């Protein structure tokens, strides 16, 4: 409580990151896992911006811009991979996708 400090934002970032991580660990739908990865990237963005806010620096926001750009490229490639998988393997279940393993 009290004043709004950087710890508030860091805790929110940690909670969001861990919720995303739980989604990656427990869900089996590839698309939901993808969304959870995006959520984790956003949590990291949040903590970067919070640190930059605390230290009077714009570098955190610059890093967040780069992360968003890379996340856009990752979204395009990842969703293309999911589409190709669903077309060839007829599934988006991560437990059924083991073409690289055997």
């Amino acid at each position: 409580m009290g004043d709004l400090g950087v710890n508030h934002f860091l805790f929110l970032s940690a909670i969001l990151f861990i919720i995303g991580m739980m989604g990656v660990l427990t869900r089996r739908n590839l698309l939901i896992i993808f969304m959870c990865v995006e959520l984790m990237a956003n949590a990291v963005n949040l903590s970067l911006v919070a640190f930059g806010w605390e230290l009077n620096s714009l570098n955190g926001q610059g890093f967040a811009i780069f992360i968003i750009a890379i996340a856009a490229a990752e979204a395009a490639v990842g969703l293309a991979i999911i589409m190709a998988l669903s077309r060839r393997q007829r599934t988006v279940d991560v437990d059924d996708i083991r073409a690289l393993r055997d």
Partner: protein
Amino acid sequence: MPWDVLIFYLIATICTLSAIGVVAVNNPVHSGVFLVLCFLNIAAIFVMLGAEFLAVVQVIVYTGAILVLVLFVLMLVDPDDLPEFHTGRPVQRYVGLLLGALLLLEIGAVILNRTVTGTSGTDTAASIAAVGGNTQALGRTLYTDYLLAFEVVSLVLTVGVIGAIVLALPERLGAASPVTRRGTISLAHPKDTDAALSPGPAGETPMPARPAATVAQPGLATAGRQLIMTKDPDAYTTPGSRRS
């Protein structure tokens, strides 16, 4: 309690609940909508942190582009391919919850015990306002300190677009659809000679031999009228005379 703390707790609560909704909801489309809500709340928190440009980019890129892309792919993927929610494997769920709680404890301890060792930067609110605002100051930072990284990111985006197009293409352009043809119905050749037919140019495959149709089905009633088939329709198939 000051107003900004209250507003922060409101936004953080909505954000956390919608993030839990992303993970826990059964329908993937609902997950996507919850993710939109979560990202909009994160954009509001960016505004609270003085990163207005980043908040706008968050709304445009994440909720505007990436989530729309995700929802499009959700519509393109066959719903029969989507796995059931947590069918079997409850061990993964409990282990995930346990690991998440442990990691939350660790990160919380680190946050509460951290000390700032770096020197504070020069981008105070006054200096940002002197340049003209958050967008101008961020632009100066990006185009001076991070110029090379900025160019490399543009290259990565180009390569990503090309890779996405290559991956999403069909294996061969103009390839036949994966629908398997079960056979053709043709009345222009003798009965039970389907197997001898060669596959035609249209790609029809010979029908497998099937048992003769039952002659009469008295139980088959349609709308009060009883439909009785007294003769086998295959008996009326004209032999010979294939149309060319």
